């Protein structure tokens, strides 16, 4: 690996100061499970590596029933799935975090890094989109908030500007009778990248769906919010016909490619199957809430 300078600021102000000063030649590091591999391969060559794990706002996980979840960008996946409150309120996000790599990877990898890396196949991103998560960024010009579905602009590129830092993800509290779920397809049981991943969050009042959001991964150059499929469910009876209709609308929105993991045709098929299954899993959970 090339020579680097390492900085470990303990405050947001310091971190933004260092990032702003060095612009494109600086990069934050959370778990390093993407960044260090990319640096070793020479794909990214930052001169300054800024370790953001010593900043409280980036490592905290705080849930409040009224305001929801503040998930620090650098909190490792293991702290998400070992957190009983999150397992209770955001089981879909937890299952996505628990799918990333092995336990060794989950001890380091963060949801913030998963999003900032900008992969269309990042597992936690569709789960965040389903939950209506918002990314809070801080930079030299101040602070701004970006919806997660607008965060990734092309494979490997995000809205983050030089000097900016993703501080945390803001996730609304789950409404009564709601729940989320995430399911991906991979050709084996562990340790692979999603061929397709679908996240869903729904609210049921009796047999009626009153809110729904579906997020899709690995079906387009960026993770997507399946707006039409989600809206089609709202206000309707939640039954097999409604689920099938949503699945068809999700397939229409997907624009997958052929690659070594699967053909575009297979991916479209998977979007249908996984949209149905994820909605059913979320609904089963919602009925218990």
């Amino acid at each position, binding site marked *: *690996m*090339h*020579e*680097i*300078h*390492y900085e*470990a600021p303990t405050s947001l102000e310091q971190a933004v100061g260092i990032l702003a000063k060095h612009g494109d030649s600086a990069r934050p*590091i959370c*778990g*390093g*499970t993407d960044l*260090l*591999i990319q640096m*070793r391969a020479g794909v990214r060559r930052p001169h300054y*590596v800024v*370790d953001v*794990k010593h900043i409280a706002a980036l490592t905290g996980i705080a849930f409040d029933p009224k305001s929801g979840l503040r998930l620090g960008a650098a909190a490792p996946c*293991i702290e998400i799935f070992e957190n009983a409150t999150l397992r209770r309120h955001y089981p879909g996000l937890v299952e996505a975090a628990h799918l990333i*790599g*092995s*336990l*060794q*990877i989950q*001890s*380091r990898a963060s949801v913030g890094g998963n999003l900032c890396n900008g992969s269309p196949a990042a597992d936690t991103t569709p789960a965040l989109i389903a939950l209506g998560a918002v990314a809070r960024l801080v930079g030299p010009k101040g602070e701004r908030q970006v919806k997660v579905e607008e965060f990734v602009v092309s494979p490997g590129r995000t809205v983050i500007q030089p000097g900016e830092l993703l501080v945390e993800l803001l996730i609304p509290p789950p409404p009564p009778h709601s729940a989320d779920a995430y399911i991906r397809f991979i050709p084996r*049981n*562990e*340790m692979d990248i999603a061929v397709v991943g679908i996240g869903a969050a729904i609210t049921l009042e009796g047999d009626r769906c009153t809110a729904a959001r579906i997020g899709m991964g690995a079906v387009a150059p960026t993770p997507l919010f399946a707006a039409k499929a989600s809206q089609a469910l709202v206000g309707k009876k939640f039954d097999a016909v409604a689920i099938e209709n949503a699945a068809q609308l999700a397939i229409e929105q997907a624009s997958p490619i052929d690659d070594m993991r699967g053909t575009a045709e297979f991916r479209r098929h998977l979007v249908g199957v996984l949209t149905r299954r994820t909605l059913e899993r979320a609904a089963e959970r919602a009925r218990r809430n």
Partner: protein
Amino acid sequence: MAKRTLVETVINNEPVELLCEPRQSLLEVLRDELHMTGTKEGCLTGDCGACTILVDGRPVCSCLMLGVEAQGHKLETIEGLATGAELHPLQRKFLEHASLQCGICTPGFLMSAKALLDKIPRPTEAEVRYHLAGNLCRCTGYDKIVRAVLDAARESG
């Protein structure tokens, strides 16, 4: 050569101060600076688990951590598993069950298994397989490794 950075850490319960370059992985620091060569290098991409050590009790791939990131953390490596000449029960059971052939994967498996037994003293077979999913072995076919871990748990639990 780049400026070397002072890192204060605890390795196998001993306070250790070391100097390393910021670009060096923790794996390189262990092997090349501290000459603790028990931790192995396989893929350098987080896939094989040969470089597994414990950081604050959690299994991590030391190839995916910078040495400087060890500052202030507690590390456990394969060198700390035995007590003097007395092998750890996991090590003994790996020998009894013939759970290794070439041995390159073994330190990583032992550290992952230790993390598991520290957390779940009497794991099920499914739990053992799940916790070892980040470690690859090209020789044994895994079954003997799983049996050794279950046996070690039975004996100490």
